[in-house]
């Protein structure tokens, strides 16, 4: 049984005043197996963020059903859901300068929401999570004093502290440098291999997604265009049709890595 199963899920945002057409998600059906890394790619307004919102119960589908481990999502308790699915959002606006440790401890909330303070066990788990993403030394540092990469790692530690079965990442490498991209990918892969963590990764970076994912989901304008292994999904014709620009797709010798390159127009 798949960890996540979507069947015929449709959704539409209420019409915004200046949009010609309201955004609709066409009927989506796919499944994510436990232990998989699935990458969700596609141009802007493809529905990637909406998909995350549907999976975490922030919005409900207008039609169709989402099942988490066989259970319909709206029957799942909010805290149960929070214990199972953790989201690493795109940006964490630090409205108040919490320390890294305080942030990571927040991830323990769904496990004992009735407590006023976290337990000693919670604090130990938070330490582990911080160690895993390498921010343990920064535990007492306020978030505002960290670099972008360090902050992202702190947020990832928070998600890990939730001890989820599914980790959802929304553009984890959006503002970050190359070294961090590699570190992030390595970390995610090790979480997947060693803990069997199911990972859903939304990214603009096709190559990162290709590198990490077992399968890719290509979305455009609310529709599921292709789903499959990276080599199959990342096909020049498909990508050009979806993104509207020219690309070249290179395969390596062993055929298990693909690389997408933008075909830049001629310089004048």
């Amino acid at each position, binding site marked *: 049984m798949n960890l996540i199963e979507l069947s015929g899920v449709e959704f539409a945002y*209420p019409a915004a005043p200046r949009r010609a057409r309201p955004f609709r998600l066409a009927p989506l059906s796919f499944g994510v197996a436990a232990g998989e890394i699935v990458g969700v790619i596609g141009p802007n307004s493809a529905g990637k963020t909406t998909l995350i*919102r549907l999976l*975490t119960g*922030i919005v409900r589908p207008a039609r169709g059903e989402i099942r988490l481990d066989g259970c319909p999502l709206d029957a799942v308790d*909010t*805290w149960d*859901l*929070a*214990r199972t*699915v*953790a*989201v690493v*959002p795109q940006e*964490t*606006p*630090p*409205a*108040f*300068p*919490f*320390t890294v*440790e*305080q*942030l990571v401890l*927040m*991830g323990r*909330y*769904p496990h004992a*929401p009735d*407590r*006023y*303070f*976290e337990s*000693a066990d919670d*604090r130990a788990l938070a*330490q582990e999570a911080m*160690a*895993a*993403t*390498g*921010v*343990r*030394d*920064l*535990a*007492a*540092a*306020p978030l*505002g*004093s*960290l*670099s972008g990469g*360090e902050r992202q*790692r702190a947020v990832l530690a928070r998600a890990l502290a939730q001890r989820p079965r599914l980790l959802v990442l929304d553009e984890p490498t959006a503002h970050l440098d190359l070294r961090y991209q590699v*570190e992030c990918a390595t*970390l995610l892969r*090790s*979480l997947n291999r*060693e*803990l069997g963590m199911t990972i859903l990764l939304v990214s603009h970076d096709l190559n990162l997604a290709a590198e990490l994912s077992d399968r890719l989901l290509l979305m455009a304008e609310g529709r599921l265009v292709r789903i499959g292994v990276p080599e199959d999904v990342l096909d020049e014709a498909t990508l050009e049709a979806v993104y509207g620009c020219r690309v070249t797709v290179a395969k390596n010798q062993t055929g298990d890595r693909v690389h997408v390159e933008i075909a830049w127009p001629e310089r004048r």
Partner: protein
Amino acid sequence: MSVVSRAGTVSADVTPATTASPVRRLLVVLGVLAVLLLAVAAAALFLGSAGIAPGAVLRVLGGRAEADSVERVVTLSLRLPRIAAAALAGGALAVAGAAFQGLTRNPLAEPAVLGVSAGAAFGVVTAQIFGLGVTLVDALGLTACAFAGALVAAGAVYLIASVGHGLSVPTLLLAGVIVGVFFSSAITVVISIVDINRLGGVIHWLLGNLAPIPPAPLLLFAALTALGFWLVVGQARELNLLALGEEAARQLGVDAERLKRRIFVGAALLTATVVAFAGPIGFVGLVVPHVLRGFLGQDNRLLVPTSLIGGAIFLLVADTVARNVVAPAELSVGVITSFCGAPFFIYILRTRTRPAP
């Protein structure tokens, strides 16, 4: 987990990670503050324009002064109720401030910002002018008018900010400011038509009016403050999570709508209560949580309980100064909190805020 990346060097001032029990920390801080509050209250009992000797005050406290003696009436009928009122008002305002700051994710939010103070003040001013001021005023009557005004203002703010299914925080701030401005203008209109002889009294009240409140209303004041405090502190942990953004908080399992409603109601209740019993007093809700944040950090679970006592101390000190600095004349406590609070606040801002890296 076997993957550990080394962190780069960090320029911030890093102290070792705190793994000490937060419970103990909270209890220690609360204990210290409680002792400080008792000390300030005791000192305030000895200070006043009646010029009563410390020995006489002690006799009263020991129950050995005769009934109807000057020291007994002054200490028990005048000073003690006023001290209690100042402590309650200060605590309520500080907790309301912390709550609004957490709710709006803005450290500059103050109870006055949400329009509730102005609404309550309008209620009282109108009542004072039209009728309730003619007969000997029943304290409860004016209080009820203040509540009515606060309810109207809070309701207006809530309705304006309720978009679709929930409370929109940015709209809440705007709505609060606008409602506050509306009621302030309404107060100005009332002032401009009021009989000139009453004008002084009205304006005096608008600056804050801490007076010795009789026992029954004082009990009501305390009960309402306790209720508002309970509403806020019960969601202190969730309020922390709200700082991550509503969606992120929801993804962690927080019922964001219920949280916002409860915090808004609690903070509005606290503000309305204070304005009803002590007039509009500004600044406490802004300064006290901010100062405490400098010492204790961002955690609302620490901030809210300590603000209750910290606010009590702050306003008690301000009121004692207001009562005594130009004795026998009395200044309005609002004058002291703003006039002396502002430079103090500037000092705090400059010494405790480091420039962003």
